[in-house]
């Protein structure tokens, strides 16, 4: 069945990092008692009117500039009409025909260009919780500002879709537009997926997948859905145009509603909001202070620090991590490559084992750099380093920076004094006479075996280079 190709386009909703909601002064925040952050406007009380938050416009324009969109001098808010208990006005204010940004693009790590159709502004709805006692509605989220970034169907694989989403997320986070948190829903992704025989130009029937709240679910849902559609066609049936929900637990997509059930939203311009006009001088000022975006950062890491592509991509795709990295290595650029690799391997492994909150890790960046430096200088052995990190990351009683300093003190100094090493080396050589003979007969690779044996006697706390030097002196003498 490899004769099919998938056509994928993403629709990404990003919650804007504003202090207040899009059309009123209520705070944007997570948690708290239900309906505490509401007012007549976001409750949709009779007579309440929306007034656009200027910061929302600034952030949407930044998102557009970061994705090479054409920023529209005039855009129009529209009403999208549907009934639902968590939609207090009975319509959502969004942008329909005339959005704030048009025609952008993203360049993926492999150089592929994926086009962006549009970015528009809209308000979020509230939250319904369905339980045995009925449905409860919390309108704290109602009126939270969102942008929707609609991509062209330029993606062909689940991996490309994930790469697109990572790139977009990195840009939005770098620009301070969105915090990029998919688990908490501040970045949400829907995918339009269709398949067609390779060589065919007409598009197949499109299915929209919702409810993917991690990179992993985006990848798995698309892989599943492409297989499903190819299977349907292989069975001689037609793919139905519908919306499907991804279930992580069931590892499959399930039908939510078909095209026939789709609502007629009856969009029309919202008469409460005049067209949004942007003036040229203001717009020019917005493009002046754009920070370095992930793509540029990756290239800088490769050129400036000779990072491997894999490492530079990993580092740059999480902007707060890259920012903390940049700050840490500002005074010791020579360590940058080693430190980046150290973060991506040892530190990342610890993070996966022990969940430590991100701000803690950022705050401990300087300590991690110091430890990495000691390790590179031979002042910590591999094993000592591993034990130190394990001890520190598991130590939840302390903050990570404190835990690292504490574990570092516990680790003590590496053994590199010949006076201590020599008797141990001598004892190992005496214990393995036949290996000594083989080594002297030319099997030089046995050097590693001897170092390992000595290290074992010293509980891993020795300097491998010092042992190696001593062994060479004794065996090659």
């Amino acid at each position, binding site marked *: 069945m490899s004769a099919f190709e998938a056509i994928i386009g993403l629709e990404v909703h990003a919650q804007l990092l504003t202090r207040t909601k899009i059309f009123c002064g209520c705070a944007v925040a997570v948690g708290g008692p239900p309906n505490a952050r509401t007012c*007549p406007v976001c409750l*949709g*009380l*009779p*007579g*309440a*009117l*929306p*007034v*656009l938050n200027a910061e929302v416009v600034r952030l949407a324009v930044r998102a557009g500039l970061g994705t090479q969109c054409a920023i529209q001098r005039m855009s129009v808010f529209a*009403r999208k*009409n549907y*009934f*639902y*208990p968590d939609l*207090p*006005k*009975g*319509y959502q204010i969004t942008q329909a025909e005339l959005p704030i940004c048009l025609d952008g693009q993203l360049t993926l790590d492999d150089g592929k260009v994926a086009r962006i159709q549009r970015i528009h502004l809209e308000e979020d709805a509230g939250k319904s919780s369905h339980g045995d006692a009925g449905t409860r509605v919390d309108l704290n989220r109602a009126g939270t500002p969102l942008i929707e970034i609609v991509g062209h169907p330029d993606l062909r694989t689940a991996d490309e879709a994930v790469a697109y989403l990572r790139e977009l997320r990195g840009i939005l986070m770098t620009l301070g537009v969105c915090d990029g948190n998919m688990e908490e829903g501040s970045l949400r992704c829907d995918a339009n997926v269709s398949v067609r025989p390779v060589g065919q130009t007409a598009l197949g029937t499109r299915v929209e997948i919702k409810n993917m709240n991690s990179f992993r679910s985006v990848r798995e849902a698309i892989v599943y859905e492409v297989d499903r559609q190819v299977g349907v066609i292989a069975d001689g049936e037609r793919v139905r145009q519908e919306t499907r929900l991804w279930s992580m637990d069931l590892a499959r997509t399930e039908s939510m509603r078909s095209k026939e059930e789709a609502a*007629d939203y*009856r*969009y*029309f311009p*919202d*008469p*409460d*909001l*005049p067209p949004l006009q942007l003036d040229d001088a203001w717009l020019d000022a917005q493009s002046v202070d754009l920070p370095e975006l992930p793509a540029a950062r990756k290239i800088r890491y490769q050129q400036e620090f000779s990072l491997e592509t894999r490492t530079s991509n990993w580092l740059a795709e999480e902007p707060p991590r890259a920012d903390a990295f940049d700050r840490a290595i500002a005074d010791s650029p020579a360590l940058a490559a080693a430190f980046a690799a150290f973060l991506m391997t040892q530190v990342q492994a610890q993070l996966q084992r022990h969940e430590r909150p991100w701000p803690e890790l950022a705050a401990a960046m300087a300590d991690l750099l110091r430890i990495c430096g000691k390790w590179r200088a031979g002042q910590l052995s591999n094993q000592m380093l591993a034990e130190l990190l394990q001890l520190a990351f598991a130590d939840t009683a302390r903050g990570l920076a404190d835990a690292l300093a504490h574990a570092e003190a516990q680790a003590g100094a590496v053994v590199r004094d010949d006076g201590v090493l020599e008797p141990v080396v001598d004892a190992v050589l005496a214990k393995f006479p036949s290996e000594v003979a083989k080594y002297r007969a030319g099997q030089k690779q046995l050097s590693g075996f001897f170092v390992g044996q000595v290290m074992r006697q010293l509980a891993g706390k020795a300097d491998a280079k010092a042992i190696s030097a001593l062994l060479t002196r004794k065996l090659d003498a």
Partner: protein
Amino acid sequence: MTATAHVEACLAQIAARDGEVAAFLHVDAAGARQRAAWLDARADGSAPLHGLTIAVKDNIAVAGQPLTAGSRMLAGYVPARDATVVTRLLAAGAVLIGKTNLDEFGMGSSTELSGFAPTRNPLDLARVPGGSSGGSAAAIAADMAWAALGTDTGGSIRQPAAFCGLAGLKPTYGRVSRSGVVAYASSLDQVGPLAKTVRDVARVYAVLAGHDALDATSAVQPVQPVQWRDDLAGLRVGVAREHLDDAVGLDSQIQARIHAALDALRARGAVLVPISLPHTRHGIAAYYLVATAEASANLSRYDGLRYGARAPNPATLDALYTHSRAASLGREVQRRILLGTFALSAGFQDAFYQKACRVRRKIAEDFQTAWRSCDVLLGPTSPVPPWLLGQMTADPLAMYLMDAFTVGPSLAGLPALSVPVGVDAQQLPIGAQLVGQPFQEAMILAVGDVLQRAFAPEAT
């Protein structure tokens, strides 16, 4: 006269007459007395509306008082905040006497379509007071309040003013804040004053007008003070033939009265300029599509979940919405929601809503063309005098046609003032409509004042 004496006089009129007139849905006697006493004791009397009683149409929020918009859907709803216009009235020293009846959500031209009870015209109880601000007009005509706030979407201030022998101003769209006003058709709704004289209307208008940060459609232009005048030398008064001599269904006595009004203006130095508003005949259709389309969205929030009686034991969420809305919204409101929903629906939006928006632009262009040759327009407010209760209710379309002259300025966003210009043979009042250029309220008020005094020299 003290504020207290004035309030007591109004409350006495309400007690005496509101049983038959039904102008009020809610009378705040205690609040009005308390405020009057406070004003008499503490205020220096310099506030622009010091101690004057104002009735507020019940689609405008007064904190702590019921807000029904004339609908059973909102029975029991009490807003926590004042509408901006109410805040301004209170800051100007006014006394709010109560909330007045209206056609449900402002949808009607007679106040017969209130969800509670019809209001009667105090000048002839068998007749309607006009609508939808009929309660406000009736309250003033029956001396239950000095002035009142109305709202006007397609004529709802001007026509009841005409029917009750009052002056009523619909300001330029954006001139007065809509914040706290229950929306009917947001691109058309405007709050404005009604009173016995143009001068009193101007006094309230001066308090209401001005920018409000709570309404994104609120205009930032400065408000011009009115320069009262006695002669109209050089004033060019446009007379649209579609609103007068070529008008379909115009009552002949009203036509004659408007000619008399034009003569009066000419006698004071005005020049009459014949003009044409060629798209007038499409006004009603465009208005009823645009207004109902917007209304269909504006009224979606009244879904039975938070307002109105929730349908018992609905099988589905859709059933809950359908049954609750059908039970709590009146027939005319349902008709307009359905009409507006249809006008916006996929496959029909271009032929109905979009086309109506295009016609709306044409109508606005008609007026722009007219302003090249004239300063104000004069014509009748209503094609007919106040009709008998029940006379029109069976035929909604006939009632829609009564808005023929008022919807044009609404669609174009222009200020328009209805001025009483006498009565017909049955002693029924007749109103003339003065239409001005955008933000030229001061001009039509000054001309309207001259016109009113021409027919009623005592009206100053």
